[in-house]
């Protein structure tokens, strides 16, 4: 569907979903999500079968050098806002600079292709690495409640953040 900083954002295929489910169910990924329950194969298949009928929800398999490395999504809400999420599951690339590449590419796509004025993310308050990660991508904290931190950024805030990332992103262009 699109490529940014060497990472391909492809539509999710049936062949991807078992690997994505495996990663999604790992404690270090699952316990940072809003829904922390483990997903069964049947639930994953049902989720996949439902993808095409979804409106204003975009799901991507993330590929790097023809290897599936993770998953990302974006969902439009009614107030010119997109809510995004991502995870890198591939062991070699988990927490690597590729996650930064995915975060930047996904934000660029949202601001370029979707009718949005801001992008929001929700991060577990205990996930300090993800909070730092998102603040590096231009997000600012809006509010915090019940163990979750809500962050948002405008296109202008994102572009300011990208300037600071240009040095490292240039290696992935």
């Amino acid at each position, binding site marked *: 569907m699109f490529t940014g900083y060497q990472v391909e954002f492809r539509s999710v295929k049936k062949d991807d979903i078992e690997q994505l489910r495996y990663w999604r169910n790992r404690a270090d990924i699952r316990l940072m999500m809003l829904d922390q329950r483990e997903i069964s194969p049947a639930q994953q298949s049902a989720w996949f079968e439902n993808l095409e009928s979804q409106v204003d929800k975009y799901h991507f398999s993330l590929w790097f050098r023809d290897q599936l490395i993770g998953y990302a999504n974006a969902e439009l809400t009614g107030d010119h806002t997109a809510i995004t999420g991502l995870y890198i599951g591939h062991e070699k690339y*988990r927490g*690597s600079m590729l996650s930064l590449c995915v975060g930047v590419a996904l934000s660029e796509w949202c601001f370029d292709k979707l009718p949005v004025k801001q992008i929001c993310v929700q991060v577990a308050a205990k996930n300090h690495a993800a909070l730092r990660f998102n603040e590096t991508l231009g997000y600012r904290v809006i509010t915090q409640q019940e163990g979750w931190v809500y962050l948002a950024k405008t296109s202008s805030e994102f572009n300011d953040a990208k300037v600071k990332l240009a040095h490292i992103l240039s290696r992935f262009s």
Partner: protein
Amino acid sequence: MTNSERLINVFVASLNIKQDTVTDELAYNTIPQWDSVAHMVLIAALEQEFDVMLDMDEIIDMNSVKVAKEILSKHKIEFI
């Protein structure tokens, strides 16, 4: 100052850790201070300190102090 001392100083400053934490075994994502954001700071600091330009694979592969030395050695930075 030796290259090893320069390397340790870069890790200490970039990751905000104590000098005795910087051993060859110290690995990416094994301490809270060495996350993806700190890694970006570290890469920039190493490049500046040793006047090198790391490529994409080197940035991805640099997952420990030991590997950092190996990668810098390819750029003719010697660690004795």
